[in-house]
């Protein structure tokens, strides 16, 4: 596949009958338009229509899609939501962190009214969350931890020691033996590295 030419965002490339839309493009009114400014690439498939995609000169930034599981770090909490920095999408690290918000009603699936943000997350916790909305121009990504596999993975106690999970809602510090409340993620055994 050879880079044919360069294009700008909004340029009409071809109609949907000639090719299918790939990354960096979108379809409107039966035509494929470019959404990025970069090099046009046409990949020829054997059975189906060729795939048209636009790539920028640098490596393409992996954007979190709706439904993707992301790893994030809590930066501040409030009585209504927690603000996080998104560090990884899946297993690929991001070059620049995105900002996300976990609302109080999205922390748990059950008993949403009785949730206290202070008993689920604390600043500097590492959390696995799922993207539920991309948000509009001004707002951040909206994330949710309302599943058993999502929630706090790594947390430090007030003594500064990494804590050990003891249940889905509590973690214990191995040095001071104090228990702290967190919304703990049940990580699948194949992902645990000991």
């Amino acid at each position, binding site marked *: 596949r050879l880079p044919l030419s360069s294009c700008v965002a909004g340029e009409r490339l071809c109609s949907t009958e000639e090719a299918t839309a790939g990354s960096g493009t979108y379809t409107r009114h039966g035509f494929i338009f470019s959404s990025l400014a970069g090099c046009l690439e046409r990949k020829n498939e054997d059975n189906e229509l060729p795939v048209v995609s636009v790539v920028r000169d640098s490596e393409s930034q992996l954007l979190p899609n709706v439904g993707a599981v992301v790893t994030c770090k809590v930066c*501040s909490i409030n*009585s209504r939501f927690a603000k996080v920095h998104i560090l990884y999408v899946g297993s690929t690290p991001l070059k620049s962190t995105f900002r996300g918000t976990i609302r109080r009603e999205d922390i748990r699936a059950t008993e949403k009214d009785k949730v206290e943000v*202070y008993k689920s997350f604390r*600043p500097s916790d590492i959390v696995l969350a799922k993207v539920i909305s991309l948000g509009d121009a001004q707002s951040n990504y909206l994330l949710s931890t309302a599943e058993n596999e999502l929630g706090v993975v790594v947390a430090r106690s007030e*003594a500064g020691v990494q804590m050990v999970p003891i249940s889905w809602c509590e973690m214990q510090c191995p*040095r*001071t033996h*104090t228990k702290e409340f967190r919304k703990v993620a049940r990580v699948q055994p194949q992902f645990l590295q000991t």
Partner: protein
Amino acid sequence: RLSAGTAPQGRLLCGPGLRRSGAGLLVTKCGLLRHRPGGGGAYWVDSQQKRYVPVKGDHVIGIVTAKAGDVFRLDVGGSEPASLSYLAFEGATKRNRPNVQVGDLIYGQFVVANKDMEPEVVCIDSSGKSSGMGIIGQDGFLFKVSLGLIRKLLAPKCEIIQELSQLYPFELVLGMNGRIWVKAKTVQQTLIIVNILEACEYMTAEQRKQALAKLSGN
């Protein structure tokens, strides 16, 4: 590090200023180590401090600094101003708002107080009654003392307050953030009580009794 001489029976209570570290206790504040032998025993460190750190459940005196929508901003002497909702008063509804102005004094307790979030104060207890909390009335005098003196004054049957009450009748509100509000019949009586309370920090019991005897003699 502390090491226990003999193994105590029952549960040992680790109080403020101490932290459990592995097999022993670590001291985190400087002060006098106190011990109470009741139950399994309790150890804590009595430290002197002037800067107040908000703690959940503490009763404090706050000064209203701003009104932001449905919430008042209170200065409680901590690192952040605390928030007080207008519904957190006894008998307050959306139609029946409390009459709170900027500069008023509020006696309330913390319902949220930790290092990660903004502290919140309410003027009702868990059953919805005010139990002495709310807006502190007009006149009177507010001043600041160290936190150790407040704890001494709040101890049951405090001698200082008993001796002062024999001098003049007065109203007294003690806030755990180091603030005291006093009101007596005349301004002069109020100022005398304020001066005695401030000096109580450094006076021994003998000096205090002498000072009070001189005042009641005059």
